[in-house]
């Protein structure tokens, strides 16, 4: 699974993304975030305020119950501030 991080999430994690293989019980966005928190202290800190994290699955916004599969592109980022 390809993870991408943007804005301060990239800063807190110290990298723009990574390839990770979550365990089989991770089937949706919410479960993925729960598992990501256990990967490292940096991941836990970056995801501490879950309300400040938006998720896109294959470049579409996704809620906590959206399914995730091996091979998906999952992006984590703060609320957008363009324009």
């Amino acid at each position, binding site marked *: 699974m390809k993870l991408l991080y943007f804005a301060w999430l990239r800063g807190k994690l110290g990298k723009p993304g990574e390839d990770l293989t979550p365990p089989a019980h991770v089937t949706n966005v919410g479960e993925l975030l729960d598992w990501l928190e256990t990967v490292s202290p940096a991941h836990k800190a970056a995801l501490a305020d879950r309300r400040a994290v938006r998720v896109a699955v294959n470049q579409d916004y996704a809620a906590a119950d959206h399914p995730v599969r091996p091979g998906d592109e999952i992006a984590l980022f*703060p609320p957008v501030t363009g324009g």
Partner: protein
Amino acid sequence: MIRVQAEDFDIGAELSRMTAGRSDIGGLASFIGLVREVTEEGALKAMTLEHYPGMTEKRLGEIEAEALSRWPISASLIIHRYGRLLPGERIVLVATAASHRQAALEGCQFLIDWLKTKAPFWKLEETAAGGQWVAARDTDDHAAERWRKS
């Protein structure tokens, strides 16, 4: 038309191109967003726009398609820059052309309001205090919300 680019754009040339050779357009509305020097953290030295290549273009395309489905718009253009910009530099151009002004003006405002809350861009402000990611604003959410269909 959607363009996401690092380079600046020529407002006059872009707007002229939208109506060139056409006689059905009665009004052209535009909005240009600029880097403002004044911030809550003090004088801005620069602003860096980050985006999500791929998803950004996809979202902007959907926002434009939504505008075209709601208003009788003859031509539309969104240009959004990324990278490090200095105070006074242009960030974004949104323009809509239509037979009549109401569709052009409303469509233009809709595009910028929705772009601000839905397109994956993030602003990093540089001041003497260092770099600070800009937080999303409730007022932007409210501006976008009023275009939601009930």
